[in-house]
């Protein structure tokens, strides 16, 4: 957010000009732990896995250096992988949209109409259920959404349906509901962090100048919280591509997502085969990010000081 400063500190005050490499190292020092984690605990192990993905498993469940492209070829030969990946992306997009809408309303409410102290407490109260075991909460969802579960009882009591519906769980609907349930708090946290910084009097000012509320919203609020929206999208959509517990528990036999197919390999210690599928998933996501990179550039909106 650029402010017009007349006179005064429009330019950074002169800093001590210290020499070359020592100064640069000191500049970079705070970044080092994160950099080390990224390189040493992520890139290097994954490079190892990349090599493994071109090898094979022998009968002793050992990974042997027999180079072949077979694991990757399987990904394309067997149409199921691409189809499941596509299905997962569609599910992910749908869940992201639902989470954004749901979480935005909540984050907006908390940022604008609630004092900061209570807003923070509310966010904590929203997050706390996620500190209990996910498995137990999904068992509860099965009890709620199941054929003889709470939801059906309520709907029948209200007279909306005459017999229990099996529509809500053990299919894609169930997966969708539970995935939204799991990711809405993340989206709410991220959106709140972004909305909190926004000065809502700008909207009032815009309306004073004659804008309709929707216009003020669209032209003033949305652009300024775009980085937050983008972050929320990334935090919801991308992890969904790795979700296998939810689909396996409430997705039913027809609801497997791509990470389930991946997990099936690793559960049987078939590392090269699993690694190949895993890298293909990552490759598709990188492809997506490259294609949509223009929308992801967060500095566009914020003038660099």
């Amino acid at each position: 957010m650029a402010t017009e400063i007349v006179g005064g500190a429009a330019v950074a005050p002169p800093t001590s000009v210290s020499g070359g490499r020592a100064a640069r190292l000191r500049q970079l020092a705070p970044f080092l732990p994160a950099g080390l984690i990224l390189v040493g605990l992520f890139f290097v192990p994954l490079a190892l896995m990349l090599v493994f993905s071109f090898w094979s498993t022998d009968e002793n469940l050992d990974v042997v250096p027999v180079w072949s492209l077979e694991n990757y070829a399987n990904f394309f030969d067997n149409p199921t992988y691409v189809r499941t990946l596509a299905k997962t992306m569609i599910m992910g997009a749908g869940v992201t949209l639902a989470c954004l809408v749901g979480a935005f309303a909540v984050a907006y409410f908390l940022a604008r109409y609630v004092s900061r102290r209570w807003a923070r407490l509310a966010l904590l109260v929203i997050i706390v259920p996620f500190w209990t075991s996910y498995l137990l909460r999904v068992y509860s969802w099965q009890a709620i959404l199941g054929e003889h579960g709470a939801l059906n009882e309520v709907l029948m009591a209200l007279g909306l349906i005459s017999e229990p519906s099996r529509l809500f769980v053990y299919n894609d609907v169930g997966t969708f509901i539970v995935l939204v349930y799991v990711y809405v708090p993340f989206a709410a946290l991220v959106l709140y962090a972004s909305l909190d910084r926004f000065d809502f009097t700008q909207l009032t000012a815009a309306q004073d100048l004659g804008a309709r509320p929707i216009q003020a919203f669209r032209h003033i609020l949305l652009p300024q919280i775009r980085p937050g929206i983008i972050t929320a999208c990334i935090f919801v959509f991308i992890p969904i591509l790795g979700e296998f517990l939810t689909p396996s528990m409430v997705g039913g036999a027809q609801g497997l997502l791509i990470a389930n197919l991946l997990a099936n390999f690793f559960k049987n210690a078939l590392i090269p085969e699993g690694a190949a599928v895993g890298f293909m998933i990552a490759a598709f996501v990188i492809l997506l990010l490259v294609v949509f990179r223009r929308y992801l550039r967060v500095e566009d909106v914020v003038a660099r000081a």
Partner: protein
Amino acid sequence: MTVFDQTYTRRRFLQASGAVGVAVSFGGVTAACNLVGGQGGTFNWMTWGDHYMPDQLKAIEDSDKIFANISELSGNAEGFAKLKEVKGQLDMMSGDALWLRDAYHKEGLIEPFDINELKVASQLYPFARQFDIWTTPEGYLGYPFGWSPISIYYNPKFVDPAPDSWQVLLDPKYKGRVVVENQPEEIVADMGKAAGFDDVYNMTDDQLATVKGYLEKLKPNVLKFAQQATDSVNVMISEEAYLITGNLGNEDRVKDGGGPEIKGFIPKEGTVGWMDAEMTVKEGANKALIRPYLEKANVAEYIAANFIEHGRPLFNEAAYKVLVNQGEQERADRYLYNKSEEVLAATTLKGPGTSTAKSIQLFNEVFGA
């Protein structure tokens, strides 16, 4: 970046390290308080949750000061992969059937022993000390614990006539009413049994092609894949499913949960099954504690209590007598406690197989989107 940010972040780093130090020492203190570690010592055991009971562990800690540091085992393949990597960090490992011989022993990870050296082994059924698959020139591969074939359970209210074969799972009448466990290689093996094959963990490509047809017929019938036994039991209680596969003992679990009367059977084409044992890890630092532990833990009283708790048969013969004395004979007989030799002889035992990779590919192909 200017000097502003540097000092600030350095200070934060120091503050953070201080906080970390406090947290870690706190964690260390609480962890140390948890450990008993008296004269006996601690050994590391990776096992399934039904191989021990809290009061049993406590009694052994109090009497012999032997502390079993337990970490969870979910499946044979994952456990094997883990042990291959961590080796000496574990002292005792549990495993099923052919995994002992064809994986752990083949890889040289475990130490065979003379089972008759253990006094408590005399409580076992004699044949349990002489299984072919666990006998090697160097000794016996593991101390036998429990076993179960995979059975099919059905709700007689909805499943008619009473089934006796794997085919019932494929009957279109039961669309969306079957629940199987979320173990792809097992599902493929089960369908291999349905197709009449014997060695279902080492199937040929032709056999797998046949099994594919069975899997495709199974797919519309499956309501969900049960992540745990609890899942299967719950769907039978709520009557969302009419048919499930699982270990022995599900009738009682469903009844206990407030569900209907269900019946179980072993399919006539044959089934797969498991029998597990405790193995000694060759490089384990504390493996000397294993024998004293086994001597204390595997006595008839504890095994009988374990049977009551988990409802599946075990290899301890003396425990059967204890159960009879406790008035549990009906239940023990229902679970074929005394019949382990005959049941297991007719069962294909779980183990690593040559067709696992192809089975998983097949499963993904059929059950993917």
